[in-house]
């Protein structure tokens, strides 16, 4: 996304009369730094990233270690050894929550990379070409908008459980998680495509595009140097929101009991511990708070990005 933003606004071509412009990154950063919500979002996202990177080295217990079952016992309240208590099955809640961070980030980033690639290509092409191409591509997009995502994902997870037995795939690590990421990505591009198309439709008949066409700019130039940069602000925001959305989707799949049993995921922690909410609330509330912080971080980041790269949307 940001790469495209750089190529999109070559400082030299914008206003040659001015002093050399600082560059879109520095400008964007300066505006971003002024946005309180954006900075808070960045801090939260960095917190999650730091947890994902450093966490496994500092986590007091291995995520598969059920030994606390014997000492403080299952559902033990928070203590010095177990800062967030232990859960129904004798795991240390803090360690499990820490190990959930890399899973969540892999889901968010993986799924949205897939989604934005497909979405921008399909939506951009449809919006710019118009006519039959637009009609066909948008009907295709509608198709993906109306397939109930959970139905498909739950069904495929079920399918895999049966089909994978006695095949080489059985030994692939985190196969279920990979499939969940892929499916969330494949089913989240439709809104991005619709947004891209709407923006392209809105922009392609505006004066500045016509002006570019008049001075003989090529299709590629118009698309990538004039239309896409103006569509990016809305897209950057929808993608950042999408990362939070993907984390949330995986949490919900896990919460419904269809997560990857080999992976430590926050949704699954909730699924395992929800029935003990009354006796051991810490085991349910901790992963819930972790999901909240992550989703909030990306949403606030999206808000800050709006301020940074699309000041006209809010100011």
């Amino acid at each position, binding site marked *: 996304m940001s790469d495209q933003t750089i190529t999109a606004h070559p400082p030299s071509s914008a206003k040659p009369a001015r002093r050399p412009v600082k560059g879109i990154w520095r400008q964007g950063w300066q505006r971003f730094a002024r946005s309180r919500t954006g900075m808070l979002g960045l801090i939260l996202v960095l917190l999650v990233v730091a947890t994902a990177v450093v966490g496994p080295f500092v986590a007091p217990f291995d995520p598969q270690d059920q030994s606390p079952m014997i000492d403080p016992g299952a559902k033990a309240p928070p203590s010095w050894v177990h800062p967030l208590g232990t859960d129904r099955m004798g795991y240390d809640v803090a360690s499990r929550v820490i190990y959930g961070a890399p899973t969540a980030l892999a889901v968010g980033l993986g799924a949205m990379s897939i989604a934005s690639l497909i979405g921008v290509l399909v939506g951009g092409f449809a919006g710019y070409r118009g006519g039959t191409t637009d009609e066909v591509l948008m009907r295709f997009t509608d198709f993906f908008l109306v*397939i109930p995502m959970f139905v498909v994902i739950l069904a495929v997870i079920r399918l895999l459980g049966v089909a994978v037995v006695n095949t080489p795939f059985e030994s692939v690590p985190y196969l279920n998680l990979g499939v969940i990421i892929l499916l969330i990505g494949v089913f989240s591009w439709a809104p991005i495509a619709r947004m891209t198309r709407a923006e392209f439709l809105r922009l392609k008949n505006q004066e500045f595009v016509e002006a570019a066409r008049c001075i003989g700019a090529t299709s590629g130039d118009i698309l990538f140097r004039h239309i896409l940069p103006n569509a990016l602000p809305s897209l950057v925001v929808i993608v950042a929101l999408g990362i939070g959305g993907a984390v949330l989707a995986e949490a919900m799949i896990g919460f419904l009991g269809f997560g990857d049993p080999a992976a430590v995921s926050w949704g699954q922690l*909730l699924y395992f511990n929800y029935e003990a909410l009354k006796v051991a609330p810490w085991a349910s509330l901790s992963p819930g708070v972790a999901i909240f912080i992550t989703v909030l971080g990306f*949403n606030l980041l999206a808000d800050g990005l709006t301020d940074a790269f699309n000041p006209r949307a809010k100011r």
Partner: protein
Amino acid sequence: MRIFVFLTRRMIFAALLMLGVSAAIFFLVNSIGNPIELMMAETPGMTGEVIDRMKAYYGLDHPPMTRYLLWLSRIAQLDFGTSIVYNQPVGSLIVTWGWQTLKIQLPAILIALAIAILFGVTAARRQHSRSDFAVMATALLGQSLPAFFLGILLIFIFSYSLDWLPSYGAYSTRNPLWGSPTLDALWHMVLPVAMLTFFNTATLTLLMRSNMVDVLKSDFIAAMRASGIPERRVIYVHALRAAFIPMLTYLGLLIGLMLGTAPVTESVFTWPGLGYLYISAIHQLDYPVIMGASAVIAFMLICTTLLTDVIYVLIDPRISLE
């Protein structure tokens, strides 16, 4: 005339879409294997003969393609088959359980819309003020708070800690509240509706606010103010109408996804709605219910998408009919 052609075209596309989605769901589910064989795989003492008779009983003894066509032709006659677990017509199961879903989802959308208009407009009129910041902050928080986690929090606070509201189900099995089944049902609706309302309100408010901010800057608002139309009328009639148009997409999606998002909501509150029915059907591999419910969920979304498109064309003359 052009509008008639447009409508016919969209209807045909919607029908094709329904066909495509149903085929996708059907063949995906069926690629797992024959539903009866899967269901009975872990039941000891099941002979091939009994399984064959069960397949014949449920009409699942044909190859998938034939079954898909049969299933379609039956659905066209509103016959969704018989549930294997409940041994009841799937159609009536969907209506009974679906009603429970609508009972909490529809009020939540209406209340959310009213709150969103109120707060969104207020925030947009006093942009960058303290109240604007408060509305934005709450909405952003609400948008990020996972709905099911909010539900868990609500249950933890209002059911377990304070013991004010019931934590699960749509009605008490005995001793209804104050002896009135109606009050008892409303009593059980409070927490699920509160959760859904909060969830819907957040995004609607943010959309309302940003649309309103844009509209309030436009020339026609300035012209109206200049011509002396009362401010309240300018805001709540003219600006609101313009700001409301872009929200229709999200509103349509919200209504269309009512059934699709139900599984999560209803798992939290053990609410006997369509989502709960659906999840338990997947767990138990109740094949006719999985097929029927997912078709209805997709149908709902397709219908509202179609409706949204049509409404756009009817109310916004700037959109061409191609």
